């Protein structure tokens, strides 16, 4: 009798608690859905407005907008080619320089450095990635540009001046300086992600190669790098995306010359910097839509690069035999 009673009581308690728990579940679920969907909505809104506001410019110039080199607000003529050129050139120079150096840093930390050094330097590398870009810009303009002019230009110009893309007089504020600042900015990205990717290469892979009688370098180049290849390409692509989208530092340094440059020592403009430098006086029927069209294009480029990058990183760092 007593047993039955307590059993019944127990059951009612359970039912009550379950019901109370369900209310919490519902609130939790509704809130989670709301926040999740609001973010989705926000993203779609941004993309929609970018495209919508750009329509007048696209109607006026069509695809000519992407080939035209004229950016003349007074005449109402807008072409994005100088900005596209600036973005692509600076981003690729930055990636070409930061790629090998960043992978080298990662290789040093993962394969060679003692664990304590790896921890400290690894932390610094990630800190470096968190510095606001305007600080990089200030550093670039007040430290790097004078440094390049004083110490690098005297021997660099005689060395490479005969090359087509390095001709002409050296300027402190130039595509070249902007590319170097970008290099330094994306270096932590390359190094930090490559470090994680290299770490995810199973120890057994390294031991397998060493046990066949490989040197450390052969082990790295033939067992570790091929295993990590996808992730490292992803790291480079992610860095490329960051370089292409970087605004503040480049706007400060690149000189904002809205024309095609023939030498990296000339001044130029990028898609991000042309928006940042001009949005305040973007009046007129086509000026603002043109900036929006530039923005939309930049969005598409960086979005695509990022998606590819993340897919590559994901495929590698959580590979079938991931974990150490």
């Amino acid at each position: 009798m007593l047993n039955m009673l307590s059993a019944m009581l127990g059951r009612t308690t359970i039912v009550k608690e379950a019901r109370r728990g369900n209310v919490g579940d519902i609130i939790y679920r509704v809130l989670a859905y709301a926040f999740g969907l609001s973010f989705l909505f926000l993203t779609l809104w941004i993309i929609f407005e970018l495209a919508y506001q750009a329509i007048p410019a696209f109607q006026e110039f069509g695809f000519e907008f992407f080939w035209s080199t004229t950016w003349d607000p007074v005449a109402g003529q807008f072409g994005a080619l100088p900005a596209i050129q600036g973005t692509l050139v600076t981003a690729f120079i930055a990636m070409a320089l930061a790629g090998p150096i960043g992978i080298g840093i990662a290789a040093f930390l993962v394969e060679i450095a003692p664990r304590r050094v790896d921890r400290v330097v690894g932390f610094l590398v990630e800190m470096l990635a968190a510095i606001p870009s305007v600080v990089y810009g200030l550093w670039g303009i007040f430290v790097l540009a004078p440094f390049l002019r004083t110490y690098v230009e005297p021997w660099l110009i005689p060395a490479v001046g005969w090359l087509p893309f390095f001709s002409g007089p050296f300027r402190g504020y130039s595509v070249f300086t902007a590319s170097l600042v970008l290099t330094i900015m994306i270096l932590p990205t390359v190094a930090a992600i490559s470090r994680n990717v290299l770490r995810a290469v199973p120890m057994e892979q390294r031991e397998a190669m060493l046990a066949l009688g490989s040197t450390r370098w052969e082990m790295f180049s033939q067992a570790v790098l091929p295993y990590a290849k996808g992730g490292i390409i992803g790291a480079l692509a992610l860095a490329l995306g960051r370089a292409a989208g970087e605004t503040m530092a480049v706007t400060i340094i690149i000189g904002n010359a809205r024309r095609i440059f023939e030498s990296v020592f000339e001044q130029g403009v990028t898609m991000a910097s042309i928006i940042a430098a001009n949005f305040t006086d973007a009046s007129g029927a086509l000026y603002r839509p043109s900036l929006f069209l530039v923005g939309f294009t930049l969005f598409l480029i960086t979005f695509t690069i990022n998606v590819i990058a993340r897919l590559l990183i994901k495929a590698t760092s959580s590979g079938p035999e991931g974990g150490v």
Partner: protein
Amino acid sequence: MERNKTRADNQPSGSHEDPRLESQPGNRDGQQKPAGAQGQTSGASGAQAQSMEVQGLNCFYGGFKAVTDVDMTIRPNKITALIGPSGCGKSTFLRALNRMHEVTRGGRIEGKVLLDGEDIYAPNVDPVQVRRKIGMVFQKPNPFPTMTIYDNVVAGLKLAGSHKKSELDDIVEDKLRQAALWDEVKDKLSAGGTDLSGGQQQRLCIARTLAVEPEVILLDEPASALDPMSSMKIEDAMQDLKKRYTLIIVTHNMQQASRSSDYTGFFYIEAMGEPGQLWEFGETEQIFSNPERQQTEDYVTGKMG
């Protein structure tokens, strides 16, 4: 009982904290034999198999001593099994035999390991060269996932220098046959190394090790991750391999050790935190049927471990 406590030459050959892996890149075709001591291989049918002699070996991880004071003679063209409970240092000991132990952070040894009379820890010896003579197969099959079956087999060979394509083709077939894998993969040599089953992957790893033409092969629980059928195939392959190589295998499988090995070493750890020691060593027959020490008997009969 083979343990010889009265050895005279127990001078530690110094610590090996700094793996000098990059030294002597020129000297590595691995084919020439060390001079002298050929007599020890008398009776060996394989031309390459070598004896090993371990003298007063201590293995450390940083300040922790994992294995203490091991003396062991490993005979050519025989299979020597190392058994014992988990954490008793048998794998560590095995890895010290081809200088893989020092690859682990903090890994270092004291004592001597002689390959056919030559100390592999002598200061002028290149660990890269040592590992070409003493190959290793690991617990978990670890073929290179970005390489084909063919490329996996020749991966170690390519390190040593260039070979003619026809030469490589012959080596690939020969080594896959020795590893008892050829019939299963001969039609898909360009498939990925990781497309194979676990047991096939492990035999691929054995073929890869054989391709470097080692004199001794160390196997670290090569069948523990495999099903009984795959495990049997590897055991069968080992019986063929001992005609040409000296084999040392760490195993948790008592039947495997008693079936397939000629000599057995029982490693034992007296208490947690103590270093492992070679508790008893002798002919397999004797270790399994008439061991001298109680713990050995308890372990091989399943009362412990």
